[in-house]
């Protein structure tokens, strides 16, 4: 159209920039696995960090801690309860507790639990070796399942803490959704 407009060069440039934009779009999605890997390698996100059992367990037998177990459901017709509402333990001692879910509805439902702890910062001292949270649970109509939780509360828990609460909330997982651990 005009003297210093080189349409060919312009279109080439446009193509390159569009491809670059497309790469950046994909890069946005690539940040997700990258972030998870980064957190796993550096141990930044302790939700993604598996706990390992320490061989020499130091058990503080002089101390008693009450662990209250709590269970909730949000928006799915399941019954969810711990088989014991609380346990008294020594810090450093491995503990096994059992939770139970029942699907009261007449359809198959996928659910997943997320944990919540109290007091604040308890997760620093709580090591779980076996847990059902972040794992997809598929329950057929009227099916019941018992799920164990194995954990240790480390002896360096601040001395002023005598009671802790471990709480789980089950959410419905829509079909096709992937849990963080299969």
């Amino acid at each position, binding site marked *: *159209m*005009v*003297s*210093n*407009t*080189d349409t060919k*060069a*312009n279109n080439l*440039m*446009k193509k390159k*920039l*569009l491809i*670059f*934009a*497309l*790469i*950046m*779009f*994909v*890069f*946005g*999605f690539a*940040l*997700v696995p990258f*972030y*998870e890997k980064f957190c796993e390698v*550096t141990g*930044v*996100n302790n*939700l993604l960090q598996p706990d390992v059992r320490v061989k020499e367990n130091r058990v503080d037998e002089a101390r008693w801690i009450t662990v209250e177990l709590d269970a909730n459901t*949000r928006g799915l017709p399941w019954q969810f309860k711990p088989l014991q509402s609380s346990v008294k333990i020594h810090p450093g001692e491995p503990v096994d507790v059992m939770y139970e879910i029942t699907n009261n509805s007449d359809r198959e439902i996928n659910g*997943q639990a*997320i944990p919540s702890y109290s007091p604040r910062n308890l997760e620093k001292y709580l090591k779980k070796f076996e847990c059902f949270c*972040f794992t997809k649970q598929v329950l057929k109509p009227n099916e019941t399942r018992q799920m164990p939780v194995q954990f240790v509360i480390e002896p360096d828990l601040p001395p002023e803490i005598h009671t802790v609460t471990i709480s789980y909330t089950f*959410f419905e*997982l*829509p*079909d*096709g*959704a*992937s*849990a*963080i*651990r299969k």
Partner: protein
Amino acid sequence: MAAVHGDAHSHGHDDHHPSGIMRWVTTTNHKDIGTMYLWFSFTMFLVGGFLAMGIRAELYQPGIQILEPELFNQFTTLHGLIMVFGAIMPAFVGFANWQVPMMIGAPDMAFARMNNWSFWLLPVAATLLVSSFFVPGGAAAGGWTFYPPLSVQGGLGVDLMIFSVHILGASSIMGSINIITTILNMRAPGMTLMKMPMFVWTWLITAYLLVLVMPVLAGTVTMLLTDRHFGTSFFNAAGGGDPVLFQHVFWFFGHPEVYIMILPAFGIVSEIIPTFSRKPLFGYSSMVYATASIAILSCVVWAHHMFTAGMPTVGQLFFMYATMLIAVPTGVKVFNWTATMWQGSMTFETPMLFSIGFIFLFVLGGFSGVICAIVPIDIQVQDTYYVIAHFHYVLVSGALFALFAGAYYWIPKWSGRMYNETLGKWHFWLSMFFFNLTFFVQHFLGLAGMPRRIPDYNLQFADFNMVSSIGAFGFGLTQLLFLYIMISCIRSGEKAPQKPWDGATTLEWTHLPSPAPYHSFEKPPVVN
């Protein structure tokens, strides 16, 4: 702000274009599109401003008077989104459309039809965004940064916002592809990169930043959308996703975004200060390198928005130092502007006043930025009015003042008429006074602990909030004066000479009459 091209045909061009509304819908002329961008952004500025007035009216005194908390949150959210994506960004693209071809001696933008398309996406996006107030559940209310879980849980308004951001992103990407290609491929013979006006340089770098981060934002809102409707769990904690991941991805876009909104402002000011100091820009090449350094650094500082979200100390330290490092190239720029004025024969017309006001207040906003960058202080002021004060100092007295400066500076070239200098000066001084009345006290409110995005507050904050609200009403009204000045300039201003500013040196002043003809530089000028 807009130009009248009614007499465009009289320049003897033989190509006919439709008249009336179809002229604007189908236009591929960079000047028409620039004009539409500017009017669009000013309209959105008024809409966003209306929301700001609502926020300040509610905060005028403690208690809930006007806006219920849900609606208040919608106001703060949409105020942010509209001002960032609807007002400031399109305004700078409008400037780029008008000025880039004229300043590099190109006949038009590289892709004229794509240019039309990237403008006309904007009203669609804006309609989606504004109409979300009227859907069940109201507009998005989780803040302009739309963090999950709120943005995963919200209603239809959030979906409208997501689509709107998609469209705005597409528009920005097309716009910046156009600008990059125009600048790199269509400069007049003899205009090497290092001879380009600073405004063109800053836009070149801004456009690269846009192509870099806008697609990431598009990806982020896409993930949000699939989390909401298609069962994925990128950010949805109930499905094992991580809301903190959203913050990382969002701010990977969001921090370069704030430089996208300020670099063209630096460019405008770098044109105006030399003109009214009647001296060439001091340290031109250091200015170019400073702009590039700011752009590069802006991509590695995002997590300073997230110091309280949970991060290892080493991460906090890295992002803190990287953020503070940005003060160095920014300091180079401020030094260069000051040195340009040094011993210049300065005059203080409205563009110059706004530019000096820009430097003064932007430096204040920059300082509070360095303060926010310091981790222990940031943990204290996170989500308080201190942060609100900080970013309004860089976005209102930074980006917006530079836009005003640019509008006054170039309106004679665009419309062929002069604005009313006395009223322009009134506009500046009233803006200056009311702006500081509004936002300076917010530093104190923030340091005292007043949280942002809350419609009610403790009695101890009452006096400063009243002062701030009065300032905001004054600032809002003052902008109507700007509208009046621009309209009366376009309709009945005095005829402007080709070069009303005797210190101006760029091509649009030296080679083109006022108003700039509808088609300019069809034969490229030769630059020595």
